[in-house]
């Protein structure tokens, strides 16, 4: 597999062209915006939580294939899961994307692992992280019962 095919795996292109869980959720679902202004990537994430579990997730994204696929893959990975489980996924995902050296997950990352190929393209890592950073802030807002601030990455 060439480096470029490793980055643009079919599964990524698939999520790019047919994004999952696209759309909006009505209040009282949590709504949080995220942006990567230097790239022009933008998204709005909606999460409906009940008893510590994410019942529904919707997302609207604009941006490059990596940021869109990452957002779409993320929604699939978290929907229906308990927040504690999700925290572990987030942790593992960020380790995978940011830590040097080879990486062994402590939870099953499933399809998310295809995003490891992004690591070889340092400038593209933040494309992959946008949805996740937005999610992190969203979960914090849920926990603190606060209205979330938009997430702006540099």
């Amino acid at each position, binding site marked *: 597999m060439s480096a470029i095919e490793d980055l*643009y795996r079919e599964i990524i*292109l698939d999520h790019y*062209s047919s994004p999952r869980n696209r759309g909006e959720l009505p209040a009282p679902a949590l709504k949080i915006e995220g942006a990567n202004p230097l*790239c022009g990537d933008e998204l709005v994430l909606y999460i409906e939580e009940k008893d510590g579990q994410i019942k529904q997730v919707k997302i609207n994204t604009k941006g490059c*294939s990596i940021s869109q696929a990452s957002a779409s893959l993320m929604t699939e990975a978290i929907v229906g899961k308990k927040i504690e489980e999700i925290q572990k996924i987030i942790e593992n995902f960020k380790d995978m994307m940011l830590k040097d050296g080879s990486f062994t997950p402590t939870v099953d990352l499933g399809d998310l692992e295809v995003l490891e190929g992004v690591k070889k393209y340092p400038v593209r890592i933040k494309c992959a992280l946008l949805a996740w950073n937005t999610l992190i802030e969203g979960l914090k807002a849920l926990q603190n019962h606060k209205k979330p601030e938009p997430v702006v990455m540099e």
Partner: protein
Amino acid sequence: MLNVQKIREDFPILNQKIHDKPLAYLDNGSTSQKPKVVIDAITNYYNWYNSNIHRGIHTLSEKATEAYENVRKIVADFIKAPDPEEIIFTRNATEAVNLVAYAWGRKNISTGDEILLTEMEHHSNLIPWQILAKEKKAVLRFIPITQNFTLDLDKIEDLITSKTKLVAVTQMSNVLGTINPVKKIAGLAHKAKALFLIDGAQGVPHSGIDVANVNCDFLAFTAHKMLGPTGVGVLYGKKKLLEEMDPFIAGGSMILEVWQDRATWNKVPYKYEAGTPNIADVIAFGEAIKYLQNIGMENVRNHEKELTAYALKKLCETEDLTIYGPKNPELQGGIISFNFSAKGGSDSVGIDIHPHDVGTIVDQEGVAIRAGHHCCQPLMRKLGIPGTARASFYIYNTKEEIDQLTFALGKVKEVFARL
């Protein structure tokens, strides 16, 4: 015409492989490469006569001062400024514009005054005026662009009024490649008693300028886009204006007499060059200009016209490609912005393949282009796109490199064809 093969020998960096492919450096709008003479001038300075200037009375200091001041003459000659003392060295074009916004603007702009820009300005010729306008309750206005990606000259006359104190326009758009009729706009500005500033960051490196003929009041440009080192910009200003303005950055060398509570200013240009300047790089910039003069700016422009014509033809032949610009080498410099669409992509961004994806994939083919908003977010918003992919040329680029680009764009399609 240029002997490009011979020129390329002067640029060691071009002779390398990227991802096992020969480098095709088509990101000259961001920064140009530097010929050996420029790099050698730096080495030579540090190895033989590095010393602080204007201050010492020892031999090295005299040599350094002479070499540094000589570049003022070289620059003045290059842009046809009447007097070398009208040349101020800054860090980059951005600082040059800021110098005017602070030192001229703070003194001359007040409530209700208008500053006229264009829709295609680089952030560096926009944000300084936003900050000034906010501080002084002044108003920014914008000359719109036409369908053809040129300035809508018909609108200019309405937009310049008795309230207009400054018109600030880019000589060449760093996104569209559009070359603006600066001389004409200078005339309109002056008729309304407004000053006229040119952002020459893109224009000066590729077509040169004659400030006396254009009759601009200020010109900002930057060495690193014209074969010179990073860390040097130029502000040209008419002597009288420079003399009337307040200082901007203050400290050593820009003063005459200093007491604890007050000071008097040194004469222009020293008044605006506080502290130790970027001596080595200014000296090396002199070599860059001499290199360009040796080639001749007309030859530079003609070579780029030829490349642009060729690239426009090739890119127009490429399926699903939108080009943002006049698509006419007479009206545009060696800059081509485009977006790439392919079947099946998400259309939520108004384009089909995001420029960042294009940039990443062509890089794998050895092609360096830039992708993004190019520091022109308002223009992107106007065009309804998040960014563009941009190829930009200089004296050392060849038609083969453009072929390499179009080949690489084929790869982009291949990758996304798997959709």
